[in-house]
């Protein structure tokens, strides 16, 4: 029935004509470079305010000023650098060892089906073992010096690297390998010129994960007889119930994570500019 229609809609549509209403807004990603900083600033201000007003006990939630003070203390007495140096050394060596081993095994598993058949169940079996549970064994195997710390980080990094590497090799487009074969490229050239660069995006994505794992595990690694190190520092602050120092150490760890993430982003931008 015509009179059941909305009379205004009918009249405007037929007589006036109307501008097309824009309805394509939202659902897009825009860059808001200051939003994150502002959110941080507000959060920190609220936190500080709550402490100042006595809403949060300084023991339970030390105010940012106390954390900052502890951090400044670490910088001025030189302990920050000492701890950072010790941890960075361990992270670097442990990560490099784990990554080298993981990539070697990952490549073998990506390329040789026998290695894959043997490797996949082994990786599945060993990957989920919490490395912290193995610390007493690591002490017996590697002692309490640096080797056991390298081993803790290295083992933690090894398995995700294996998985990232062989999955990355699976992602290398088969048509490129076929192409290379059709031009008679030898096996080694195919590996070097196609498989390796083709797997690089996946391997670099793995680096992002393993770098975070290395940071997490440095705390576990430094449970074993470490005099210096950010992990040892955080553990000690926790044991001593010095919560402001504890948070200062945690802050250093997350800044370290941020720094490593930035370096990796740069590396990706450099190496993967072809994407």
């Amino acid at each position: 029935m015509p009179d059941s229609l909305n009379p205004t809609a009918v009249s405007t549509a037929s007589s006036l004509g109307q501008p097309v209403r824009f309805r394509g807004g939202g659902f897009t990603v825009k860059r808001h470079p200051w939003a994150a900083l502002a959110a941080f600033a507000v959060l920190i201000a609220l936190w500080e305010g709550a402490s100042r007003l006595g809403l949060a006990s300084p023991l339970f939630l030390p105010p940012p000023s106390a954390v900052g003070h502890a951090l400044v203390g670490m910088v001025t007495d030189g302990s920050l650098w000492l701890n950072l140096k010790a941890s960075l050394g361990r992270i670097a060596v442990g990560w490099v060892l784990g990554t080298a081993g993981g990539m070697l095994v990952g490549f073998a598993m990506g390329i040789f089906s026998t290695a894959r058949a043997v490797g996949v169940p082994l990786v599945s079996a060993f990957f989920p073992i919490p490395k912290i549970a193995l610390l007493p064994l690591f002490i017996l195997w590697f002692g309490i010096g640096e080797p056991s710390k390298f081993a803790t980080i290295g083992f933690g990094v090894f398995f995700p690297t294996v998985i990232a590497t062989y999955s990355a090799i699976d992602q290398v487009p088969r048509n490129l390998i076929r192409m290379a074969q059709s031009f008679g490229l030898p096996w080694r050239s195919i590996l070097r010129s196609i498989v390796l660069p083709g797997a690089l995006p996946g391997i670099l994505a793995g680096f992002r994960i393993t770098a975070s794992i290395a940071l997490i595990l440095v705390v576990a690694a430094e449970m074993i007889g470490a005099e210096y190190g950010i992990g040892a520092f955080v553990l000690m602050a926790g044991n001593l119930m010095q919560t402001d120092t504890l948070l200062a150490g945690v802050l250093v760890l997350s800044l370290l994570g941020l720094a490593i993430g930035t370096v990796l982003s740069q590396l990706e931008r450099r190496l993967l500019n072809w994407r």
Partner: protein
Amino acid sequence: MTLARLTRRAVIATAGAAFAAGIPMSAALAQPLEKATVGVLALSSSGPIFIAKAKGYFEKEGLDVELKMFTSAQQVPVAVTSGDADFGVTGLTAGFYNLASKGAVTIIAAQSRDEPSFPLSAYLATNAAFDAGLKTPADLKGKRIAITTVGSTFHYMIGLLAQKHGFTVKDVTMVPLQDVPKMVAAFKGGQVDAIIAPSTVSRQLVADGAGKMLGWVGDETPWQLGALFTAPKTMKDRRPLVEKFVRAYKTALAEYHAAFNGKDAAGNLVKGPGYDELLGIIADATKQKPDIVAAGLPYVDPQARLLVDDIVNQVKFWQSEGQVDKALDPKSVMDLSIAGQ
């Protein structure tokens, strides 16, 4: 029906028990029990608490005390600070004094202590270190010693030893390994020269031939290992509760002391009254075999008296190590007004 009868019988039984204990029946029946929680570790050093609970001394005081089990000494004062437990009993660490310096906990009575001829913690040398001349605790100067963490009781025991023999903790290399299993692993692997270990672990290591015992900490440097503590706020706002708790605790403490800490004229330990019953209670609570428990029962003061001088020494030691705020007055970490000392 059955339920009603059962309840009636239960009431009669309770009344009978109350009468027998000399408490006015009306008091026991009229008031519901006041609830309180205490944080403990499942170790025989918490024995008096287990005894007070099992033998109903808390109930007699009108308290319904719940035991909260923790796995490390660091956690107990934190639980008291956060209000998850009203009381705590454990070993005293630098972390404890840091909480005390922030006004979160205060010592109200003694727990166990290292006392001569009571086997609680031992100095152990690896066979290699022993053969190389590490024969007595005094020889530990200059050696590598595994500890759990910086600020732990092990750290302090080394400090005490150093004080006694005229060196400092700087003269030894302390290797923090977080927990006793890792210390044992490092010891067995020859990564350190020595450890200080609890009695059961020590005896096992010696029995396994993994090392030699150099002596007991109690013989070398007696000290106040543990304490009963609460939050200053509880002390202020719920003083009657604290009084009742301490009364029950002291009853159990005296009973524990009589059963386990008595000596004959020759200085040998003798079994006191109720030995087997109390041992059974502790074995139950710690889930250990009675003979293992019996081998490592620590000394407690029957009146819960604290070694005040040692507490002061502890605070000063941690302050000199830079682990506790220098502004903390050692006397302020304890409030012994209720324990009566």
